[in-house]
């Protein structure tokens, strides 16, 4: 599981996740991910390279969104593939963290 960050326009951070967000993948990045999510005002989590998602990955995303929220920040999800999106929706995550399929929409949603 790889995690890369990119600072984009208007103080927005894009976190790109790459790999399987399973129990091992989530465990490999949880500390870095939560630290980032809790220290940035606006975070777009790019899931387009995530090929698999299980409940520990959902826990990671939710914990990150809670960390961002508690500091007055905002986090959204970008570009999950259909199978990953189905897991997110089945878990009800889409009602808590918005899912976007275009970068412009995701950026507009988190813009401070």
């Amino acid at each position, binding site marked *: 599981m790889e995690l890369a960050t990119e600072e984009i326009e208007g103080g927005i951070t894009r976190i790109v996740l790459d790999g399987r967000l399973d129990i091992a993948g989530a465990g490999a990045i949880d500390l870095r991910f939560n630290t980032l999510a809790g220290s940035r005002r606006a975070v777009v989590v790019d899931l387009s390279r995530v090929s698999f998602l299980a409940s520990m990955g959902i826990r990671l995303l*939710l914990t990150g969104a809670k960390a961002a929220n508690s500091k007055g920040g905002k986090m959204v999800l970008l570009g999950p593939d259909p*199978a990953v999106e189905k897991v997110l929706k089945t878990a009800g995550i889409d009602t*808590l963290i918005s899912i976007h399929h275009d970068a412009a929409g995701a950026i507009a949603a988190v813009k401070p």
Partner: protein
Amino acid sequence: MKPALAEMQHLVLRRDLAEIARMAAWIDEQARILELPEGMVFRLQLCLEEAISNIVRHGIVPEGSEEIRLSLGRRQTRVTAWIEDEGQEFDPLQVSPPEPATSIADAKPGGLGIHLMRQFATRIEYQRLGSRNRLVMEFAPS
């Protein structure tokens, strides 16, 4: 009469979360041999990760019962997974689904594994066989 089950494959896991990566690789290999569709492999991987991680994290076991036995078999287009362990009796089908959270602040991470298994497997059955738990999950093409 039901058509014959294609040869069953077995994997024995230790009660250790690190074993899930080995299981995932094994499922991918079985899926290739059985020529399973991609969508079904995703569902199998998801449900088996949730089932095994629940057993490892929450199972209460007598000493010396460290093994979890996983079997996979295909009958026509359907795949069945059997998971057996020697833990204390635990029927995941008796667990109520989590209450949906209304806000990020109220959301409690966790408790989703069984809910996901019930939604992504076509059929789930729990059996108590002597001192063993057996979970049977069946997957039809989506």
